[in-house]
């Protein structure tokens, strides 16, 4: 309440101060006006100069007077109250016609929103910086200069090397059968058969896993023309779900410096699906996809949602 009264007094001083500013501006502009017009035509040069100088002095004095007046008024206006956290914009809350112009509440919303945004951005950046090995962090953290250096060395691996890595991984897991195809150029496409449970088609770019599709053991993996069908989704809901999980997994396992480790981790993860159908319905607790991010390599994917 005291604040409101204080403001009421100030408002009077404000209007005086504003008229003071107007007076100052007009006297200043008068000075420049007379300077622009120059000396008026008189009979003698002396008379001309005399009149011009006296007029100029008079105008400068009036400017000085106005300026002093303004300084005096500005002392009355006083400093804006520091007590309000939003400074002068806080005075908007005193607006009596709040219903018509909800400016103050909108302003508060905007402040809250921007504070929250800043807070979340801070959290996200600290989280991303912890996972320096993951793809997303790599794109953000590593400088633009480094990326092109890493990529070519791992992208242009000789096909022979890829074959070796894949066959070594195939020997590691007896229940995984990995067949390697090169339908277009040097990029490999793997057909991974896991026991009698599922078939996964893994599209590679050098040793990077680009895409994966999981289908049932009894589903077709070839087109009519005998080529591997890398696009069609599985007709069963279970395997559509598994495909989603596998895609998440391959985004999760990223290690550009050692791509063979990534492929091995992915296969270890995929292998845990051998018990897909053996779990009972109720034990398979449906967990959201985000939980998969915390499943380390080699653990059972016990988060299946089979129905």
């Amino acid at each position, binding site marked *: 309440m005291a604040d409101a009264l204080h403001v009421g007094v100030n408002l009077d001083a404000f209007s005086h101060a504003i008229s003071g500013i107007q007076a100052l501006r007009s006297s200043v502009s008068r000075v420049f006006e007379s300077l622009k017009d120059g000396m008026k035509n008189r009979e003698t040069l002396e008379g001309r100069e005399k009149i011009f100088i006296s007029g100029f002095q008079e105008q400068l004095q009036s400017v000085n007077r106005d300026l002093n007046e303004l300084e005096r008024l500005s002392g009355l206006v006083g400093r804006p109250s520091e007590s309000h956290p939003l400074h002068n914009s806080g005075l908007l809350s005193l607006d009596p016609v709040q219903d018509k112009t909800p400016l103050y509440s909108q302003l508060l919303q905007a402040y809250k929103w921007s504070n929250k945004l800043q807070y979340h951005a801070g959290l996200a950046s600290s989280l991303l910086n912890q996972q320096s090995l993951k793809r997303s962090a790599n794109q953000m953290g590593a400088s633009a200069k480094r990326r092109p250096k890493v990529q070519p060395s791992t992208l242009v691996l000789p096909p022979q090397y890829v074959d070796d890595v894949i066959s070594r991984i195939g020997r590691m897991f007896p229940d995984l059968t990995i067949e390697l195809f090169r339908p277009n150029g040097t990029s490999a496409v793997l057909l991974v058969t896991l026991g009698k*449970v599922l078939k996964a088609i893994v599209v590679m770019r050098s040793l990077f896993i680009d895409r994966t599709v999981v289908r*049932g053991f*009894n589903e077709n993996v070839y087109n009519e023309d005998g080529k591997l069908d890398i696009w069609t989704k*599985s007709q*069963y809901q*279970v395997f559509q779900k598994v495909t989603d999980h596998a895609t998440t997994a391959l985004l999760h396992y990223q290690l550009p410096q050692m791509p063979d480790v990534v492929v091995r981790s992915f296969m270890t993860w995929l292998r845990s699906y051998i018990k*897909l*159908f053996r779990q009972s*319905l109720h034990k398979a607790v449906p967990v959201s996809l985000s939980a998969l991010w915390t499943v380390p390599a080699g653990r059972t994917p016990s988060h299946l949602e*089979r129905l």
Partner: protein
Amino acid sequence: MGVTCVCQVPVTEGKSVQQTVDALHKKLEQLGAVKQGSFWVDCETYHPTGNVSGQPSKLLYVMHNSETPLSCMGLFEGGPCLIADANFDVLMVKLKSHFQNAKAHKVECRGSRYRYCDFLIKVGTVTMSSSARGISVEVEYCPCVVPGDCWNLTKEFMQSFLGTSVPELPSVFAAKPEGLFAPSDCVDTMTQYLELFNKLRKMQMPGSNVR
């Protein structure tokens, strides 16, 4: 084609066959299963007429299934089976001198087909010479091909709408523990239907108030 289990569901005490089937439909729909048309399975019995000395004569069953409308299946009692084109029936007519059609023994099973996620459920009424003999339920879990793997899963699912009358692992699977339920093996399904039909055929007619 996945792993299939066919079983008989007893008629609820004090209810007719149709009422029990309706109750099953209702339960399935409450579960969230979606009706997808209808199905039928039939079976004709042939007696061999030619006498082979020293050997007991085996019956021949010819079966049809709406899932494979272009095929027809011939099963010898306890022996080999073959899958033929639908016009195998015509051939059997020509073989009249060797195999006699026991028309009175014709069994039929008709009903609705439901889908619940990856499960396929068929609830049918088994009729023999136009009298309802019992109820059959076929449950198929399509994505899996190894019966041993998904049996518990299937059993658990069946419990959810059949209650206590859930069967044990069908004997056709028990015989081949590691075996695949291969796509061509709708033989396994048909063998189970045949066993069910034979069981119902041997049953005493439970009075004339069945219908």
